[in-house]
């Protein structure tokens, strides 16, 4: 084999016109196997995938609302921009169903639209992938621009196993690209170009790449955390991240709840003190107690990431005196309640998309800028400080409870889905607790 041969790969091609319409495609919807077919031999993998957000991508009522909004406000590009990643088979085969024909996601799921499309990011989307893709750059017209290099329908399934077992159902081919983080492109890195400005809207891979050791070595790849190896050597196919199916009440019964909770608990570390500024053991009346907190990301991309403008992570700080009276609190909210952005002591990690009128927006299509200074960058340590003036009324111990919390949606994004909003969980990422003794100087 020479270098020419190494670089050879196979794919079925498709092309789009300036409106995102398929001009030509070699891919038929029938080329994609339904996940149900895969289940016959790969039941565990199927069950894992079926719990995943990849399987949920076309079943999510929130997504359904959003794509209808895009249909109403930014047609035709808007809904195609969404569908390109939520159901790649629909895009590449020009099976772009009429979203207006369905009042609810349940209507859509019970329709005669191909099951493969309803399956969203189905098995064959990944296992017919033959070449790595590039970042989606949405230009001024926000055309669907994801380039999928697929070779479905030819009886070949690609994967990361170097010596796959032969079987009578399909040919199996090893592909080293399955070990690469960039395999998760084009859907996990999207930028918007407006008036020649680059807006890094959803750039998980870029964030990861900027952690230099990650980009250069593939050490701690996407797959190593989001598809970890199981004891039997297989990769877990739940693609655990931060999202879960919100239709469950109690939400703890949602299929990925425990996995998401565990992942978030492994994402950051908290401690009192920052560098050489320590939390004192004692404090006197009249003094100002400075409470330093160190927040360390142990994640190879920003927190939050992906649609960081939808998500938020923050510090909940509660300080009680001896009488259990609240001396200071910040970031204390119910799950359905928005954070108080006017709280100057609030430590908040999120981003905001800005539209052409300088208002915030949640539509990529309407984005003209992003405020992303408040993301906790990959493997970065940052301080947070809280101050209390110790009044004479305070006595005994100050009990300081600090938690880093996370939720995948800012509550107002779910205002059209009160049934989901009530289930929206706030996950605890880390917690610390300590006391300071108030010395009575009177």
């Amino acid at each position, binding site marked *: 084999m020479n*270098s020419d041969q190494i670089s050879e790969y196979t794919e079925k091609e498709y092309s789009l016109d300036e409106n995102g319409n398929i001009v030509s495609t070699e891919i038929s919807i029938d080329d994609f196997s339904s996940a149900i077919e895969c289940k016959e031999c790969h039941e565990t993998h199927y069950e894992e995938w079926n719990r995943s957000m990849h399987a949920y991508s076309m079943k999510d009522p929130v997504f359904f609302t959003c794509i209808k909004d895009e249909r109403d406000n930014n047609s035709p590009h808007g809904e195609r921009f969404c569908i390109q990643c939520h159901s790649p088979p629909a895009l590449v085969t020009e099976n772009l169903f009429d979203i207006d024909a369905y009042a609810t996601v349940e209507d859509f799921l019970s329709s005669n639209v191909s099951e493969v499309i309803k399956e969203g990011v189905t098995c064959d989307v990944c296992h017919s992938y033959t070449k790595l893709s590039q970042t989606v750059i949405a230009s001024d017209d926000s055309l669907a621009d994801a380039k999928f290099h697929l070779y479905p329908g030819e009886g070949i399934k690609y994967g990361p196993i170097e010596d796959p077992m032969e079987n009578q159902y399909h040919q199996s081919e090893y592909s080293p690209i399955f070990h690469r983080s960039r395999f998760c492109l084009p859907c996990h890195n999207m930028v918007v170009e407006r008036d020649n400005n680059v807006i890094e809207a959803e750039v998980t891979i870029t964030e990861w790449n900027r952690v230099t050791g*990650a980009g250069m070595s593939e050490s701690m790849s996407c797959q190593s955390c989001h598809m970890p190896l199981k004891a039997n050597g297989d990769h877990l196919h739940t693609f655990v991240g931060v999202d879960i199916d919100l239709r469950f009440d109690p939400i703890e019964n949602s299929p990925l709840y425990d996995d998401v909770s565990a992942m978030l608990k492994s994402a950051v570390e908290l401690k009192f003190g920052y560098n050489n500024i320590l939390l004192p053991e004692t404090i006197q009346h009249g003094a100002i107690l400075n409470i330093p907190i160190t927040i360390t990301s142990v994640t190879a991309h920003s927190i939050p990431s992906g649609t960081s403008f939808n998500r938020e992570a923050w510090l909940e700080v509660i300080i009680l005196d001896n009488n259990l009276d609240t001396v200071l609190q910040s970031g204390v909210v119910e799950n359905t309640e928005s954070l108080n952005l006017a709280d100057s002591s609030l430590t908040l990690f999120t981003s905001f998309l800005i539209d052409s009128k300088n208002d915030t927006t949640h539509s990529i299509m309407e984005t003209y800028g992003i405020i992303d200074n408040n993301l906790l960058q990959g493997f970065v340590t940052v301080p947070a400080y809280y101050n209390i003036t110790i009044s004479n009324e305070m006595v005994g111990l100050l009990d300081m409870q600090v938690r880093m919390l996370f939720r995948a949606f800012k509550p107002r994004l779910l205002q059209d889905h009160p049934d989901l909003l009530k289930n929206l969980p706030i996950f605890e990422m880390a917690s610390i607790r300590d006391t300071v003794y108030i010395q009575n100087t009177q």
Partner: protein
Amino acid sequence: MKHIYFGIICSMMMTSCDLFESNNDFSDKVYVALQGLNKIGIVNINSGIVEEIDINYHSIDCSGFNNATDCANNGCMWHDMGGVNSHCMSHGDSHSNHAPHFISIDHSNKYWFVTTMMSGWVGRYSLNTGDLIDTIFVGDSPALMALDENKQILYVSRMMLMADGQHGSQTSFIQTIDYSDTEKMELKEPLDATIQGPHAVAINSDGSKLFTSTFEGDWLYKFMLEDNYIRYEVPLETGYSEDINDPYPTKRMKPVQAILVEDSLLILSCSAGKWHDIYSGITHKIPGQVHVWNVNSEPMELKDTFLFSWDSRPWHLIASPTSNRVFVVLKGEDYDIYPNSDGVACLSYTSEGMINDEHEWITREEIFEELHGIDISDDGMTLYVSGFVDGKLHVLDASSGELKKSISLGPQLETQAAGVKYLRQN
């Protein structure tokens, strides 16, 4: 195992092959670390023939280690998933992944060396036969190398880490390896740079001083190798990184590679780029830059700085053997978002360490995708530059920066061409 492949491809760029060949030695060979393929490619520049050498040293199955200590001690990576889901894994998902990163050639003693950043080995090969002589495990993400050919000592730097102390390089040590024995290399006392991930490394001509700089901490160090390893250090920027014991170093400059010219001037590439000021909450775009340091003074003195754009990310660099010029690879920001940010630049400097305000030339080509390594021919006429993402070896005219040709080494995105070393002809 060695394979020889003959069906190579050179994609000719703009200039005719005949013109190029007329000015060059037909037998020029360049070694390229093909990190993503676990191979070294030995490229015959004229013919386009690539001889490939597999890197498949003994590797460890990390899945058997059930605690973080055993895991790290065996060159693996502990993945803390919280509780019972935590597990030990090899770097890069596959225990057969070595990721050869950098190559050094000892032309005097006829060896060449390679570091495998993921599996932690240094391999020594015969320059005459290409045979593997021996390997030595140094662990912890070995990266660049500096050679003392007279004493036959190899100095191995570390890959920049991932800041959490668990992934990437964890040590602050430059590993010292004695390779004077013709059959077996031996680890010697390492040099402690105090901050994790000392990456840039250079040595003076008589082997008495070694310089390194930490990607993670923005410090420049000088070790007196013949004087009990006495260490001197200086921050790369005034006003930042002033406490060498700061547990959270500033990390604005992100130095990558150093070369020593005239035994007194250290030229250092600093990749810089986006930097988040944790106090103001503002993300700054720090220009990529090249520093010239007088390293014979004490303290070492920054003589001059050349600034590129923030997204240029200066990476590997090489000095001309025939003139006061230095050639800098601009790695660029994420190549498909900032497609014109990578390239190759030529700077000139004076013997006093001042860099001319304007670069001599800068070459940016559409075919470039995340350039990485660089070396130069004996006569100073030709540059060889690897493309980490494009998977090519680019050949440039050193006097003009003109791209002469690009040789494909493997698939785009997968080959990950990294370190480049030119085989000297004399």
